[in-house]
């Protein structure tokens, strides 16, 4: 198993000392606060997991001058779109129709590959074959597992609007009565039977607009839910007392009737209670399928079992396939195509100052960003590699008790020079602590100017200057000896320094002097990832920036009074995952 060195940065959002007042413990909270500043960051602490991120994941707030991580930014949705057809869906449609694509985007229920619509007619031959449109019945086809909606008995009349057509057909071709149609039917019934009498079965004479629904119908889950919901709402409306303003109690706390109702509770007293009791009718339960009652018959279970026995294991749907379906399906022939879930484009805001950190364009096809304040453009990136190029095989492993040197390269993205200070505790936290020495804790990294700009500034001597730099670098490399206090190599906007690591031995039963305090207390076996050397490094970056001018810049450069330079600094913890120690 190979190990790639990593650098994670800690977001300051987890360090915030939110004052939690606990009575009688005032003194201790103060101690804690000062402790936190001195306490080194322990990457092995369980909480550290939540605050460490690679640099590419972090954003930077220009107003607060702080790093922001994915956990401390506020998300706002810019657009909803279907990842399959890239159609932008307005948020009102999402609220009413749901968060799936309502056009023709479906996934195969067997293998979740995208389904394509094709005609069942034979392809036309002869001249102009490519331009002839086909209007046979249409089916959905999976290009990957060769499933077709014919296998569940569903065909379509039109090639567009598959979602609507699909909602009206069951597997096997029989039409579904959609909840919307049921609702209309219910409304028609109540309007019609408010005057006339009804049979006990609930069957009304044939009137236009009313469907002949079977009171013992086997409903699917959606229809049953809508029937039950409508039934209970009507029951509540009948049985709950009408408030002073004539509204039923159903409207909740926000209505004007609520205030008078609540006032009535306090002032009305016994009078209101009597009124309430007299009005209250008994609530009953649903009586038939029209109202949402479904009686399970043992026969339906037997049918399923017989089917299983005859068709075998292959005909049952797997757990993964069942999870994607909205209804409880047991068999593969009951699976229905899955509509694609809509995806969102989000903009991110800083939690404290509400400044927008990242804002994508609302047009779905463009992947650009209108605003993009990423940490990569503000804080120096760190990369690690071993100083001695490793031999094959033993590449990423560290030998215990053998000092190994690593090269840290700091790349500066800012347009100003930065001074970098790095510090690390002498031994890494954890049971097996390796000794770490930074050979050059303080250095300056050049500005990220263009190569051309630098060349123009140098003027005629540019060729010789660069050559001089190169030979100097080569000289230090030729020595192969890292000196304390000196940087290893310098480039236009980067500097590399050497860090020496003495990996700890992973022996749990070793001589007493070799064991750390923690190991003495806890001598269990080696746990996962305890053999990875993680070095917490505290980085402090200082630079002088131009004061931000909000009004007209650029052209008025000459008319600016002074070049106000503001000293800025940023400090954060990083964790360098350097390598894995071999067990000896």
């Amino acid at each position, binding site marked *: 198993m190979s190990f790639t060195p990593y650098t994670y940065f800690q977001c300051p959002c987890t360090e915030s000392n939110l004052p939690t007042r606990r009575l009688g413990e005032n003194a201790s909270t103060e101690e804690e606060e000062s402790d936190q500043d001195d306490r080194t960051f322990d990457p092995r602490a369980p909480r550290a997991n939540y605050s460490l991120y690679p640099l590419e994941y972090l954003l930077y707030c220009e107003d607060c001058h702080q790093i922001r991580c994915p956990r401390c930014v506020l998300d706002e949705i810019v657009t909803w779109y279907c990842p399959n057809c890239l159609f932008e869906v307005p948020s009102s449609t999402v609220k009413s129709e749901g968060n799936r694509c309502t056009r023709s985007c479906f996934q195969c229920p067997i293998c979740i590959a995208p389904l394509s619509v094709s005609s069942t007619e034979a392809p036309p031959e002869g001249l102009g074959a490519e331009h002839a449109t086909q209007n046979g019945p249409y089916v959905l*086809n999976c290009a990957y*597992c060769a499933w077709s909606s014919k296998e569940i008995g569903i065909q379509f009349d039109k090639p567009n609007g598959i979602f609507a057509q699909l909602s009206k057909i069951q597997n096997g071709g029989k039409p579904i009565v959609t909840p919307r149609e049921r609702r209309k039917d219910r409304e028609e019934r109540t309007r019609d039977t408010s005057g006339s009498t009804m049979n006990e079965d609930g069957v009304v004479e044939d009137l236009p607009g009313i469907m002949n629904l079977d009171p013992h119908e086997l409903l699917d889950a959606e229809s049953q839910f809508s029937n039950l919901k409508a039934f209970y709402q009507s029951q509540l409306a009948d049985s709950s007392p009408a408030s002073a303003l004539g509204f039923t109690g159903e409207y909740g706390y926000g209505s004007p009737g609520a205030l008078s109702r609540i006032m009535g509770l306090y002032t009305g007293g016994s009078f209101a209670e009597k009124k309430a009791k007299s009005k209250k009718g008994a609530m009953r339960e649903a009586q038939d399928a029209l109202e949402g009652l479904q009686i399970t018959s043992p026969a339906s279970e037997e049918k399923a079992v017989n089917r299983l026995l005859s068709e075998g294991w292959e005909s049952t749907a797997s757990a993964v396939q069942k999870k994607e379906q909205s209804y409880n399906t047991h068999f593969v022939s009951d699976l229905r195509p899955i509509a694609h879930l809509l995806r969102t484009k989000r903009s991110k805001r800083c939690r404290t100052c509400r400044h927008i950190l990242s804002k994508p364009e609302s047009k779905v096809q463009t992947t650009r960003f209108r605003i993009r304040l990423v940490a990569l453009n503000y804080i120096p990136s760190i990369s690690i590699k071993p100083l001695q190029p490793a031999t094959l095989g033993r590449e990423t492993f560290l030998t215990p008790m053998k000092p190994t040197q690593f090269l840290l390269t700091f790349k500066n993205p800012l347009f100003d020079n930065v001074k970098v200070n790095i510090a690390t505790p002498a031994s890494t936290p954890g049971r097996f602590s390796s000794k770490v020495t930074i050979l050059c804790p303080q250095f300056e990294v050049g500005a990220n100017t263009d190569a051309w700009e630098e060349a123009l500034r140098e003027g005629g001597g540019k060729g010789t200057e660069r050559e001089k730099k190169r030979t100097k670098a080569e000289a230090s490399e030729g020595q192969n000896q890292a000196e304390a206090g000196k940087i290893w190599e310098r480039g236009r906007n980067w500097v590399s320094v050497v860090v020496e690591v003495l990996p700890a031995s992973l022996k749990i039963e070793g001589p007493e002097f070799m064991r750390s305090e923690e190991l003495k207390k806890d001598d269990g076996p080696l746990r996962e990832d305890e053999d990875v050397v993680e070095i917490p490094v505290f980085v402090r970056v200082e630079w002088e920036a131009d004061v931000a001018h909000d009004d007209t810049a650029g052209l008025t450069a000459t008319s600016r009074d002074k070049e106000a330079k503001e000293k800025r600094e940023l400090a954060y913890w990083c964790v360098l995952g350097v390598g894995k120690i071999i067990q000896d």
Partner: protein
Amino acid sequence: MSSKRQSMMPPPPKPPTSLSSTITIAEHASLIGTHLIAIGSNTVVHPRSKLNSTYASITIGNNCIISERSQIGLQGEPEGEERDGILIENGVVVEVGAVVEARHIGEGCVVEVNARIGKGAVLGKHCKIGPLCEIADGEVVPNFTVVFGNGMRRVDRSGIEDLKLKMVRRQVEILRKLIPSKPDKFQ
């Protein structure tokens, strides 16, 4: 600019072939071996396809498409007695990079990109072996099976086999116009 180095090895043996007159075989297709290679009518053999009859003969049916970098034929010494050759029926599409060592591939099969079919395997009619899928040595795959994903299988009951064969025939027609054929090199 260095000129191409000539290989020191002797050229590979040219196999005895029985090629139909209507096939399209690219110049850079590679036919090597000692056993017979027979290719049926209307078949298209792309350049850089490797037909290796060193260990057993190869018979390819009509209207087949053998794509680039595919390897047809036993790649290694078969255990046991002398094997029967590879038989590929009509209308079979062998996609790019597939390795076919099977004994018998049924009509209308599609062997997708980078699939591997083991020695002595038997594929039924109109099967579809998905990309990067493997069929073990000696395995018998029933008709109309679709092998996909992580070892998943299902039986395809869509009933559009004739349509698929028609599409293959159309594809062959188009490929014939695109690939210049040089059957004489292999006669």
